[in-house]
């Protein structure tokens, strides 16, 4: 159903093709009738194998025929095993069994040559290896290398390769070398980059305490950053290397943590850095002299199973006398957070730190990469990948210092990559809100929760992390944003 070009043909050609197809249909129907009859009588023999072969060579998607072949193979092996043998002849018997599997293996290979993207053929081969008394895993590794040479993006081959290299116990270092070779031959090979991304974290695990964790040790990270940028610059329009680059720079969502909390005498809200459920959620206030109070009956604000904001309407007597908040849930190990006072309420607020601190080596690498990207942009000012990567590098180096410039780049990206205009708008909004929240968190505690004013942020077109705002009594937005959320946005005072 894929890649069949519609060609204009003459009347005669059409007629000829029709006749040809009619013959094929007739042959197909005749074969399937015979197969069905034999199956009804449980005749899983060589004749059955012979009937299914030509159909599968042409159309390997007919799963049932592979099932029939597996029945045949099991029957044949069973029959061989049932023959009485003397101990001397055991080896011959095993040879016979192996022969059954070998013959079938070569059929799958013939089929793969015609149709290397068939789920059925690859699976049949796996099944044979699992059933065979003596699987040659090394040979399978070679087979994969051959098929990856023919098509380096065939994910069936890659999946099969990962399966057989584990069985053959190929060292991960060797696999990494294989990957490097593949990438050197062709940078535009997302499949190789992907395979690489699985090996590196295992070979060079990160042991520092940055959160979210870096994908690999910083020494290796530096090397990889260098390698991938060379690849990306070789063809700046190819996306594969740029995707890998973004992964190296780290753009995972934050780890789950409580980020905002406010408790008044008649309601409590608790926000998390990302979506979570209230499964086993436990919220305890602690104060001087071992005073504790558990707040229960939390609900999600959006009424769904998961949310970033949870609230409870249970009354709390004099919340401001508690000093600490203990939060735990199924997904979150218990943490204790210090509470602050706001009028009669207790609260906690922790804005997301946008920059991560790298070792000087990596930082130098990032800075030199930024320079390279900037100089490429001088020649190609509209290079989408370069603009985006520059913005990401700037954020990785120092998001506060470069804030305005990153905003400028995202604005430009909305034009040069207009298909994804709204993606860049949302990304800009996310970065703006992050910055605004850091600033907000630095305002004097006595006034902080009174209001947060976002009305002057021009490029703020949506609120990506509403959960931070919920602790404010009032959220001041631009006219456009007020309209966009039409009362759907809750602040602490209207929960």
């Amino acid at each position, binding site marked *: *159903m*894929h*890649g*069949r*070009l*519609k060609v204009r043909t003459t009347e005669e050609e059409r007629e000829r093709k029709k006749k040809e*197809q*009619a013959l094929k*249909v007739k042959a197909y*129907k005749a074969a*399937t009738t015979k197969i069905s009859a034999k199956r009804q009588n449980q005749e899983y023999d060589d004749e059955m194998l012979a009937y299914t072969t030509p159909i599968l060579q042409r*159309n390997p*998607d*007919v*799963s*049932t025929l*592979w*099932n029939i072949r*597996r029945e045949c193979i099991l029957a044949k092996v069973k029959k061989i095993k049932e023959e009485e043998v003397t101990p001397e002849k055991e080896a011959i018997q095993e040879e016979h069994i192996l022969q059954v599997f070998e013959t079938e293996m070569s059929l799958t290979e013939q089929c793969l040559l015609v149709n290397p993207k068939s789920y059925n053929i690859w*699976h049949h081969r796996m*099944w044979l290896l*699992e059933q065979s008394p003596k699987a040659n895993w090394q040979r399978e590794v070679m087979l994969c290398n051959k098929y990856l040479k023919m098509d380096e*993006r065939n*994910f069936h081959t*890659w*999946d099969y390769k*990962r399966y057989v290299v584990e069985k053959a116990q190929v060292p991960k270092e060797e696999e990494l070398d294989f990957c490097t070779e593949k990438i050197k031959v062709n940078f*535009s090979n*997302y*499949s190789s980059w*992907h395979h690489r*991304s*699985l090996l590196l*974290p295992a070979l060079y695990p990160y042991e520092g305490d940055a959160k979210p964790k870096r*994908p690999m040790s910083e020494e290796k990270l530096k090397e990889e950053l260098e390698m991938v940028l060379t690849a990306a610059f070789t063809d700046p329009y*190819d*996306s594969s290397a740029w*995707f*890998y680059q973004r*992964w190296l720079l780290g*753009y*995972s*969502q934050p780890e789950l943590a409580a980020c905002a909390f406010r408790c008044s005498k008649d309601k409590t809200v608790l926000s998390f850095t*990302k*979506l*979570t459920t209230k499964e086993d959620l436990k919220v305890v206030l602690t104060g001087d002299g071992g005073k504790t109070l558990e707040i229960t009956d939390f609900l999600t604000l959006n009424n*769904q*199973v*998961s949310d970033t904001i949870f609230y409870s309407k249970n009354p709390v007597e004099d919340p401001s006398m508690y000093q600490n908040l203990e939060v735990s849930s199924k997904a979150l190990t218990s943490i204790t957070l210090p509470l602050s006072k706001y009028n009669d309420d207790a609260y906690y607020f922790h804005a997301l730190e946008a920059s991560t601190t790298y070792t000087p080596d990596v930082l130098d690498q990032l800075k030199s990469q930024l320079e390279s990207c900037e100089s490429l942009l001088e020649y190609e000012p509209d290079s989408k990948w370069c603009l985006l990567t520059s913005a990401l590098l700037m954020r990785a180096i120092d998001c506060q210092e470069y804030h305005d410039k990153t905003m400028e780049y995202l604005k430009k990206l909305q034009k040069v990559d*207009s*298909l*994804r205009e*709204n*993606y860049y708008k*949302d990304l800009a909004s*996310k970065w703006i809100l992050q910055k605004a929240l850091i600033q907000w968190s630095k305002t004097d505690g006595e006034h902080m929760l009174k209001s947060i004013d976002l009305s002057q942020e021009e490029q703020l077109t*949506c*609120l*990506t992390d*509403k959960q931070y705002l919920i602790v404010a009594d009032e959220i001041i937005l631009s006219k456009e944003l007020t309209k966009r959320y039409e009362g759907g946005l809750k602040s602490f005072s209207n929960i």
Partner: protein
Amino acid sequence: MDFASFAKPTNSDANSPTTDDSKTEELHFWKHVEYIENHGKDQDDYEYCMTEFLRMSGIYWGVTALDIMNQLERLDRNSIIEFIKRCQCPTTGGFAPCEGHDPHILYTLSAVQILCIYDALEQIDCEAVVKYVMSLQQHDGSFFGDRWGEVDTRFSFCAVAILTLLKKDLATTIDVEKAVQFVMSCCNQTDGGFGSKPGAESHAGLIYCCVGFLSLTHRLHLLDVDKLGWWLCERQLPSGGLNGRPEKLPDVCYSWWVLASLTIMGRLHWISADKLKQFILSCQDNETGGFADRTGNLPDIFHTLFGIGALSLLGFEGLKAINATLCMPQYVMDRLEIKPQILERP
């Protein structure tokens, strides 16, 4: 353009314009209806015979597409239901793609989907289907496609979709926690996407299965939406079409896999809907009806459903709403009171 303005075609197409209108933005509505309606009328048709091994899914594609176009009555409900009944395996409870073939979870889902659309679940042995699905779950939480042991995240989706459509409580039928763990073990750190098994490269079709699985099990909070959403919106190419992996060609079926995933994640707005519509419409065959994978290729029933389905997700006028998670008409979901989880747009 509303529904009433569509005039039914006359019997003959001989006088229809033959000018090259590949650039027009018009949906050849009645051509598609006819294309689907005629599919399989000639039982000796070569294509039809060669796709016998997926007949049940073929019927699901046709039935769903016609229902989305409000033309379901064009197909014979009774004969379809009778056919489905004949395909249920008396020993396992699963469904074969057609008589003479073996049952498989893929065709079991298709059969259940068709019966839901026809509101005819009582016609089959539903308990046997539940047992079949339960029997395919493995210790690591994954699902076999059938008794021969192929494992794939597609089958995890099929399993929870079947049980949901049969209104079965997932928690008491399968080990949901383990099933979720298995699917999440197929999530890639690089792009937030999913492959068919642990370690497999991300692929839009399998992402749809895994995102759909998480939507049905109400575990969407396990996704890294920003990361995956970005990778998915990067599937859109200058032609407006979507591909399934980086540096691959666009294809109408990916309009569905990518678009449905973005819809479930509340990020449909991250791609250009107008450009995608143009691409999908350019893949119509304006002579025979039906949609091809790409402009200028031969149409088939599979791409016809996913073309129509994607247009419906984009809010195309004259089409019924489609449910992104189950790829079935929304009114059927409402009737069955099935509400897969979806995330809101920020």
